[in-house]
């Protein structure tokens, strides 16, 4: 019965085993089967980036992956970004300080994109940030608050890194 498959994948550190339809997208798997509704759908054709998650640490549009393709993989969503409890990741704190969100709908996708970018580009520049988020559409902010937040987060994460001897980064 190849229209259905058993999948086993780790999401935010927790292993999930489900039987699913093969055509179920990763985005809908996360939202509907796991109840992780922080990953949002804005276009379902791979342009707006609202559905961005990390798959094995790499950003991907969850609307363009079938959930079966994530079998055996390690997925991180927005729900896995903040440390447990009431705290916020430095990137999230920076967004709050710099008004990097308004309606908040594109925000999870942008945050996950920036997690990867800042991990790979600790010395982020404004042009670099804008290019990094050019695959994420926002209709509310005009991007400036997001850019300011990302640059500030780079500083904070760099400072944390220095303080812990280069191993303190919170990125998943």
């Amino acid at each position, binding site marked *: 019965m*190849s*229209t259905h498959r058993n999948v086993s994948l780790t999401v935010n550190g927790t292993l999930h085993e489900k039987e699913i339809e*093969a055509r179920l*997208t990763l985005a809908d798997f996360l939202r509907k089967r796991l109840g992780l509704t922080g990953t949002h759908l804005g276009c379902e*054709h791979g342009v707006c980036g609202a559905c961005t998650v990390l798959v094995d640490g790499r950003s991907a549009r969850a*609307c363009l992956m079938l959930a079966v393709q994530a079998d055996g993989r390690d997925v991180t969503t927005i729900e896995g970004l903040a440390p447990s409890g009431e705290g916020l990741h430095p990137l999230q704190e920076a967004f709050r300080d710099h008004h990097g969100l308004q309606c908040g709908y594109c925000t999870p996708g942008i945050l996950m994109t920036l997690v*990867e970018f800042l991990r790979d580009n600790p010395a982020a520049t404004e042009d670099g940030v804008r*290019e990094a988020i050019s695959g994420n559409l926002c209709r509310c902010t005009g991007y400036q608050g997001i850019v300011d937040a990302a640059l500030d987060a780079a500083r904070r994460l760099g400072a944390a890194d220095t303080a812990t001897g280069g191993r303190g980064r919170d990125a998943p």
Partner: protein
Amino acid sequence: MKPPPFSYHDPGTVAEAVDLLASLENAKLLAGGQSLMPMLNMRYVLPDHMIDLNRVEGLDYIRETGDGLEIGAMTRQRAVESSAEVGRLCPLLSEAMPFVGHRQTRNRGTVGGSLAHADSSAEIPTVCAALDAVLTVRGRSGAREIAFADFAVGFLTTCLEPDEVLMSVRIPAWASGHGFGFEEFARRHGDFAIVSAAALLEAGPDGRITRAALTIGGIGPAPVRVAEAEGALIGQSGSEDAFADAAETCRGIEALDDIHAPACYRQRLAAVLARRALQKAWSRVGAH
């Protein structure tokens, strides 16, 4: 916009994938998914079977060969972007990679997927056309090699038989010290090119051009090698006029007309970008 129902197959080898393709009706191959999934979600394609290549062994590699590079079809675009070998042996491809979509799409999108999808606005096919890439495909009756010029035959159409899977692309390297230049005009960063130009030049010790390749992407149903321009450049010194004249021949290329750009605009862009790509390539001759 949800995908239609289909049966899902994820073969572990190329042989299995070929068998599936040969035996199943109305089947589509799924590589990176960055082109196919949007079409699926919009129900522009309604396959009964999806054959997922992401578990097939042995198609994800970048290898130096005797005369250049070989890249497996399932190699992620991101790996090509960050590859030192590609930067050294095929810098034109390296230069084009950051223009290919966005980071998220390059993380999943594959070299083979882009080539097989055959959108002439895409950077990878355009660059492969300039480089005279050779593709290796495998079908029921075995493997064969196809020159890129024979591979991309029309709008989103290749000469792949229904039972054939693209396995790899071989790119012969240009001589050490060659010049390369990639130019594109797109409406926004990361968009498909409205028109792109890929140029390669080699020059002799007398400063005259000994070899030239110029491809225009996005102008026609397949990337266009501008033989007239290439021929005109052989033996020339790298003057602005030489490049401008060569580039002008691009105005005569038959061009697509769509909501983004009329044909005459594409022709004009082709000439402008060809000139800029050639000048950029010339500025790099002998530099490395």
